[in-house]
């Protein structure tokens, strides 16, 4: 009895430590008059414990980290197997000590056990004292390059069981480092170069199906837009982009159209080309010595947000996909508000994220499309080039807050920020949609 009490006390003491780490927020000072849009109430997220057990250490570590990075749970740490009180193990649900984990503040217990050709995941509802969901997932061998992505899918499904919304661990990022485009898993693992060394490649974006990406290849002051398949490496030059400077491509949600910016002596303007039929570039803006660039489609494909210098410094505007109804999207005070760039429309359509200069440093901002209210997300260091996770809640961006330019992730709901493991001087990240099993070769 005394021993159990001591054990519970020890773990109860550990729990606040875990919460403190999870709550590391972007808390530095923000200029007055700007509302920092992050209001975090600790304790409203359900506690979740990944149960210790024999074997499956790699899978358990991946799942645990994915669920932590989902920012939907208070992760509760327990000792590794051995000293585990009532650890699950292969014998199944009956062995789980629901009462003990409940005492630690956990609402959910995730149990992973080895199964033929993969693993079985069980989600225990600790309050109800029963298994809420269970499923056996096929997994390739741990040495297989596709192993991690499959385990990420397990974590995403467990998150869906617990919250109704799937996680986003089974997604990937594109990024630029040293003029080369790389892809990596959402947790920073599996870094793979996609374009040759010795070039200046910029602005990668995913096709909606995750099977291709478009980017700018800069050479001798000119830029062409290329679309490359991820499986075969086959590359297509987008019609009309072989001359002059063509930058900032963006796929339409159906993957058939590509919007991009074309620069010549009269300025930079947004064009739309049908890459499915390889024809018919249509000019959407007429800048007359102003710049219009960085188009981004709304998820319904009917509108485009973009950057324009029509009023002086670059700011974020919106137009219909045929170029009509152009208007300001993110309000600004002329002469006071800093330059705004790099907009990306959220997957749920509600917000556009962009960066805006505040006292000489770019910071992340959201504008809600319906109300046109602007709120600031970051304030520590330089924070730029945001890209949405498929859940419309996490954003990867470039920040120098650690001293050098690295990729970071912010959870818009809680304000928690964390660093991604990336190569040096990483920039221009692009987050994929959730990747279906058929979409991407490992």
């Amino acid at each position: 009895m005394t021993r159990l009490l001591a054990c519970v006390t020890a773990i109860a003491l550990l729990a606040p430590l875990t919460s403190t780490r999870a709550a590391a927020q972007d808390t530095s000072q923000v200029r007055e008059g700007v509302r920092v849009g992050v209001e975090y109430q600790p304790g409203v997220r359900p506690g979740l414990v990944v149960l210790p057990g024999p074997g499956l250490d790699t899978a358990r570590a991946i799942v645990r980290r994915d669920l932590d990075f989902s920012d939907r749970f208070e992760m509760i740490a327990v000792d590794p197997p051995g000293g585990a009180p009532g650890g699950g193990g292969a014998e199944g649900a009956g062995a789980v000590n629901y009462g003990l984990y409940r005492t630690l503040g956990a609402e959910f217990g995730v149990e992973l056990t080895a199964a033929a050709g993969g693993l079985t995941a069980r989600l225990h509802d600790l309050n109800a004292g029963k298994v809420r969901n269970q499923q056996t997932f096929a997994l390739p061998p741990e040495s297989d390059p596709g192993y991690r992505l499959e385990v990420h899918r397990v974590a995403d499904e467990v998150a869906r069981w617990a919250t109704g919304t799937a996680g986003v661990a089974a997604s990937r990022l594109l990024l630029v480092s040293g003029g080369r485009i790389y892809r990596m898993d959402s947790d920073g693992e599996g870094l793979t170069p996609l374009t040759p060394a010795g070039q200046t490649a910029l602005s990668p974006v995913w096709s909606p199906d995750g099977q291709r990406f478009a980017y700018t290849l800069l050479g001798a002051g000119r830029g062409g837009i290329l679309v490359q398949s991820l499986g075969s490496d086959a590359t297509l030059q987008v019609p009309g982009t072989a001359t002059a400077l063509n930058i900032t491509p963006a796929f339409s949600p159906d993957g058939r159209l590509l919007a991009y910016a074309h620069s010549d002596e009269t300025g930079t303007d947004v064009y739309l080309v049908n890459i499915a039929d390889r024809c018919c570039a249509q000019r959407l803006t007429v800048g007359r010595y102003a710049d219009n660039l960085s188009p981004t489609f709304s998820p319904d494909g009917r509108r485009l947000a973009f950057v324009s210098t029509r009023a002086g410094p670059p700011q974020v505007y919106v137009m219909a996909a045929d170029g009509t109804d152009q208007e300001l999207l993110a309000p600004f005070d002329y002469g006071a508000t800093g330059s705004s760039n790099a907009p990306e429309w959220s997957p749920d359509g509600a917000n556009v994220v962009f960066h805006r200069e505040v006292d000489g440093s770019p910071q992340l901002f959201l504008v809600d499309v319906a109300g046109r209210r602007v709120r600031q997300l970051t304030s520590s260091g330089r924070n730029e080039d945001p890209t949405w996770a498929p859940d419309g809640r996490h954003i990867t961006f470039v920040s120098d807050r650690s001293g050098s330019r690295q990729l970071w992730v912010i959870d818009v709901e809680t304000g928690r920020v964390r660093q991604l493991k990336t190569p040096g001087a990483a920039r221009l990240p692009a987050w994929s949609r959730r990747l279906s099993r058929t979409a991407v070769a490992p």
Partner: protein
Amino acid sequence: MRATSLMLVLATAGLAAACGGKPAPEQPAPEPTAAPAPAPTPVPTDDSAERARLDRERLAREAAERSKAVAADLAAMINFEYDQATVRSTDQGTLDRKAAVLAANPNVRIQISGHADERGSDEYNLALGNRRAAAAKRYLENKGIDASRMDVVSYGEERPLNPGHDETAYAQNRRDEFQVTAGGDNLVAPQ
């Protein structure tokens, strides 16, 4: 010395005008290998031949130096304020000298490349560099230089001149560069 050079230039120009009858040579000015215009000695001696050879060498040297100075005028960079693509009044003289050189050397073609400092968005800086290059081209066009002789490109912030991260470096990196792409040999100084 300076007066002598000037006289020689005028003499050479006069000779060219007398021979070709054209106001400005279509070909770059020929090396003054033809005998210098004021050749007072009717009967050449060994001594005068040597003097003529030295004169020719000196003229060639001076022509090369003038051509170098003209090329430097053509290549001189201009700089910009932060996030601006307007030609500064202090750079108008630099562009005026380029316009004069381009007028005096109608076969010369140039490429103007716009650059930005590392602040600001990577992608926006490409558009900004393009606007900076286009601004210089428009200025030269307004000075009478044919648009087809000037090509515009942008490198954004991808090719900094100074790798530093301070205002001195930024100021140097916000620039237009001017590169001769054709007709750059034997540049003629503007009148």
